[in-house]
């Protein structure tokens, strides 16, 4: 196993409005530190992918961004969203999650109808107007490229959908809340190439209106869809750069090795 110097790293400066930014974020599971001192900024309306070997901390980092680690880990540092440090315990975590949606590796629709899956959270958030509910249902499904496939069976169980459809439903469920930022943790790793490419299309479509941060194992995917890429290694971000540059001309040896498969 090769070892790399964590201080040998490269971070691009991005001169754009930030959707979200982390400052010196550290995450520990009990005594185990999983993320060391990570500062990254994510420009608005871009797609940023997080890559790195298994266990390098990508999911851990991603889950900090909407406070999904609250109960599981201790997160230090600042996470700035709209000039608010949302890592402050006083922040209303529920509001945070409404604006920063998340989709997980395994599709996790509720055991409800397709309609209810999408409208559930909306109703809980006080939207009771029928037409508004219906409109959100349709637009979110359309944005997730699922509308055509399910429009005739909105009231049947979401669990009857195929894996790829379920995953797109989960994306639709998230974007129905009109979030600013969408976090995706390996959304396509359990899916076949066709479903995968549909999800990639969806993501690219979405990035017109929101910021997408996506964890992926799939180099091709990262290079196909993302604008920026961050490479994680053992809890450290080693390189953060434009995707094109990372894949054609990585600045750091570790990144290069990883991408070429000559790593570890």
């Amino acid at each position, binding site marked *: 196993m090769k070892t790399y110097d964590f201080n040998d790293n490269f971070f691009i400066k991005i001169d754009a409005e930030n959707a979200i930014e982390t400052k010196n974020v550290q995450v520990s599971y009990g005594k185990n530190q999983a993320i060391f001192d990570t500062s990254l900024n994510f420009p608005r309306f871009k797609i940023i992918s997080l890559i790195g070997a298994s266990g390098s901390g990508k999911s851990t980092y991603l889950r900090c961004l909407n406070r999904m680690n609250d109960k599981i880990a201790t997160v230090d540092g600042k996470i700035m969203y709209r000039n608010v440090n949302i890592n402050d315990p006083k922040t*209303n975590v*529920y509001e945070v999650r409404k604006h920063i949606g998340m989709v997980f590796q395994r599709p996790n629709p509720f055991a409800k109808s397709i309609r209810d899956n999408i409208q559930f959270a909306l109703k*809980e*958030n*006080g939207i009771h107007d029928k037409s508004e509910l219906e409109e959100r249902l349709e637009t979110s499904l359309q944005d997730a490229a699922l509308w055509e496939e399910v429009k005739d069976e909105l009231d049947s169980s979401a669990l009857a959908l195929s894996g790829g459809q379920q995953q797109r439903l989960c994306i639709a469920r998230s974007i129905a809340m009109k979030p600013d930022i969408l976090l995706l943790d390996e959304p396509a790793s359990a899916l076949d190439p066709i479903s995968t490419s549909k999800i990639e299309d969806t993501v690219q479509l979405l990035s017109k209106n929101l910021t997408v941060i996506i964890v992926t194992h799939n180099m091709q995917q990262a290079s196909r869809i993302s604008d920026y890429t961050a490479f994680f290694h053992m809890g450290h971000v080693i390189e953060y750069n434009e995707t094109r540059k990372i894949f054609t001309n990585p600045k750091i040896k570790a990144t290069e090795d990883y991408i070429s498969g000559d790593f570890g």
Partner: protein
Amino acid sequence: MHPKRTDKIATGIIYCLVAMVIMILIFLLGYILINGVPDISWHFLTSQAQSFSAGGGIRDQLFNSIYLLILTLIISFPIAIGAGIYLAEYAKDNWITDIIRTSIEVLSSLPSVVVGLFGYLLLVNQFHFGFSILSGAIALTFFNLPLLTRNIEESLNAVPNLQKEAGISLGLSEWKTITKIIIPEALPGILTGVILSSGRVFGEAAALIYTAGQSAPEVSYTNWNIFSASSFLNPMRPAETLAVHIWKVNTESVTPDAHIISAGSSAVLIIVILLFNLSARFIGNRIYKKITAAK
């Protein structure tokens, strides 16, 4: 803000409910222990019960409770494992299985008296087991089986199917896969079932009055010959358990210190159950860690 407030209120209510339950529990256990512990002495634990003079102990009853529990587990555990495996692995999803499940569960909700009388007529009289630990253990098996079977079935089902596939794809028989791979993994869950059902065995009185009997004839603790009538190990001797003893001193006993014996016995029973539960968990975890190589 509204959902957040609801969340606070709901959480508050849940905490209140939990607090109330904890208070009830502490009160109950405290009541039993505070009333009983001062009456526990070495003499109390190691001497024989008295029919109508004061100063009796609970030596035989205590031993009988534990012996009866062990015997009950020896009889019911293997049957429950077999039945649990059947339900988890072999049973098809059809009406026959439905009937089997229903009948098992009917067993668990039968009133103890009814099981006791059934045991009395069948075991004590028909099979000539007499009032004996064996009769008692079999009667308690009737209660134990549904609880244990259900629990074992659930614990087996909780082990991911992947594990079973791993086993059989290596050419192992289903039986081996279940007994050597699935059951070890399900051990913690199975243990909970054993502990719960043991609690019921310790606490059961009505079913035992008619089967294990309500007298504790003198036995010798040095006679290890299991077939000798006076041996403490003889399963064919009548055996009043602690719970039955508590029932008896409270109903028909003329001993002047009946209330002391009752309180002391209840406290001892609770302490014994606690010790049993703790040691079962401890030993179970040791075994579990050993076979799963976890640290």
